[in-house]
């Protein structure tokens, strides 16, 4: 026992642990500061940035939620993120399945073409996108945002899904085909359930940047009733003063849906659904 216990703490493992602790602190502290600050007044934040609030006041939250448009911003963010995710998940699953499992003539070329989307930052395309959306009449519309975000997320989704679909055993497909299943049935009844953990990865990976994005809404959306949450929170940046307390409260509230999404989907990672598909 003692030998075993000693071998766990080698200098290298201690170093690794220290690194992990450092990383955790680096991630948790800013979040904790934001959370704690959301209960403080702006003056308090300025005087003692890291101190605990004198009283745990909910005034900031009241102000944020009372601010007339917060609910609308929140709803818009949910609509845009959910709409884009529906498109990303369904299209990358289907495209990934076709690219990963059907040999056809331009399979490789098509795959490369889609992956090229990963290499072009959306910011570079701001002007052409603006012109295109304007032409399509989708400027200042949630649909415009949804389409642009979906297009941005699909390359990563296809990349992830193609790899996983390719790795699924061929015999499953053959068995289903002999059982009389159509291609669509094989896809959605047999294969898709096996890549649910990977779909969760795609969902989290693509949803976070969409939910937090500030740039595209600020460029494409001008009507107040169509603004998204990050854009809406900017009202607390005054020309001369920043309402820090309200800003932190707003950030805290806006982070909640993503945390919830992560908690729901992280269970999928743990489920080893493919276990027992073939010889185990």
């Amino acid at each position, binding site marked *: 026992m003692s030998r075993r216990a000693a071998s766990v703490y080698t200098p290298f493992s201690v170093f690794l642990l220290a690194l992990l602790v450092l990383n955790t602190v680096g991630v948790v502290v800013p979040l904790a500061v934001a959370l704690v600050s959301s209960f403080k007044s702006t003056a308090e934040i300025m005087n003692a940035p890291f101190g605990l609030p004198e009283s745990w006041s909910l005034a900031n939250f009241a102000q944020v939620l009372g601010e007339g448009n917060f609910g609308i911003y929140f709803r818009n963010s949910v609509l845009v993120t959910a709409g884009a995710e529906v498109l990303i998940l369904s299209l990358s699953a289907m495209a990934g399945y076709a690219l990963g499992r059907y040999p056809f003539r331009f399979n490789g070329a098509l795959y490369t073409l889609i992956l090229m989307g990963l290499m072009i930052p959306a910011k570079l395309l701001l002007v052409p996108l603006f012109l295109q959306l304007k032409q399509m009449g989708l400027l200042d519309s949630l649909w415009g945002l949804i389409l642009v975000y979906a297009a941005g997320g699909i390359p990563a989704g296809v990349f992830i899904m193609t790899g996983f679909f390719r790795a699924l*055993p061929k*015999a*499953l497909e*053959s*068995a*289903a*085909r*002999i*059982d*009389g*299943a159509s291609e669509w*049935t094989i896809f959605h*009844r*047999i294969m898709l*359930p*096996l890549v649910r953990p990977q779909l969760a990865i795609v969902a989290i990976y693509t949803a976070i940047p969409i939910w937090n994005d500030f740039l595209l809404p600020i460029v494409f959306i001008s009507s107040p009733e169509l603004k998204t949450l990050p854009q809406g929170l900017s009202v607390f940046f005054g020309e001369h003063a920043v309402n820090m307390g309200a800003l932190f409260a707003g950030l805290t509230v806006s982070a909640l849906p993503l945390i919830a999404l992560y908690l729901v989907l992280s269970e999928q990672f743990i489920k*080893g*659904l*493919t*276990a*027992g*598909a*073939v*010889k*185990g």
Partner: protein
Amino acid sequence: MQSLKVVNVAKSFGATQVLKDINLQVAPGEFLILVGPSGCGKSTLLNCLAGLEDVSGGEIWIGERMVNAVSPKDRDIAMVFQSYALYPNMDVRGNIAFGMEMRRVPKAARDARVAEVARMLQMEDLLDRKPAQLSGGQRQRVAMGRALARSPGLFLFDEPLSNLDAKLRVEMRAEIKLLHQRTKITSVYVTHDQIEAMTLGSRIAIMKDGVIQQFGTPEDLYQRPANLFVAAFIGSPSMNFIPVVLRRDGAGLGVELRTDVGTLVVSLPAHAGYAAYADQTVTLGVRPESLLRVAVEQPNLACRVDLVEPTGPDTMLLTHINGAKVVARVAPAAGLVPGAELHLAPDAGKLLLFDRQTGSRIGP
């Protein structure tokens, strides 16, 4: 129950020809084995029968139908895969019922059939489990149940036992055979294991390099192998191959066997095919159990024992004849030790001759 006919079937992947001019005919209720070393094309042939691969040439008939252009689901077949290929997200019940569900069999009829199959395979208690919760043998059973559920006209097995451990394999082998005796469903079974082939098959097609070497009953293959490959593949321990010269021996022909300690001339039964090989070197094939221990007074070949391998019921003796390693399967007895002298005589009626160039069997 369907018949199966394979006519001149060929299959190429790009420039590689994996099946060459395959011809098979199987009567309803038969159990056909496709056996051969890995890469011989047996699984490809099975996939062609299933419709999972298209043939490059020839015809496949299931019953009275030419099925070349028929999709797998309409071929009236069911298949058991080496990897079982159970649907991991469905429970056992769902797995067995899936094929019927796809064919729009009403729920009540599906449930009844699932219960029937589960009873037949003694797995009623497994119906609500997921494949991940089953052992290898249980998965195998479910895979068979799924195939059985639809009462197919033709049953295809792709090395269904090779993922099981040795003991379970023997058990499941017997179960498959019992099941076939009960259901009489025409079956095609791919394996690389010659014992599985011999024990299960009513007829065996033995393949090498995409060509059927011999197609016959297990007895045919064992007693009258078409060539050296078949002779060596079927039987364990393998047939002994001894280079011999065919000499005139009175009116007929005989072969001379020689060891360090003795010689024996064995006359061969008369056969017209032998004459052409007179005074030439051929390969003599003799099964280990056809080398008999005889009393020293009888004509015999004295041999020196090189190695003794007791297996329990039999003992394998290794020795040399005409410079070739030879195994004799004899009854266990005292005094069988390395270096001992042994008196052997081949069972003249069971000797086989093979052409050294072509490998084909000469004679009856």
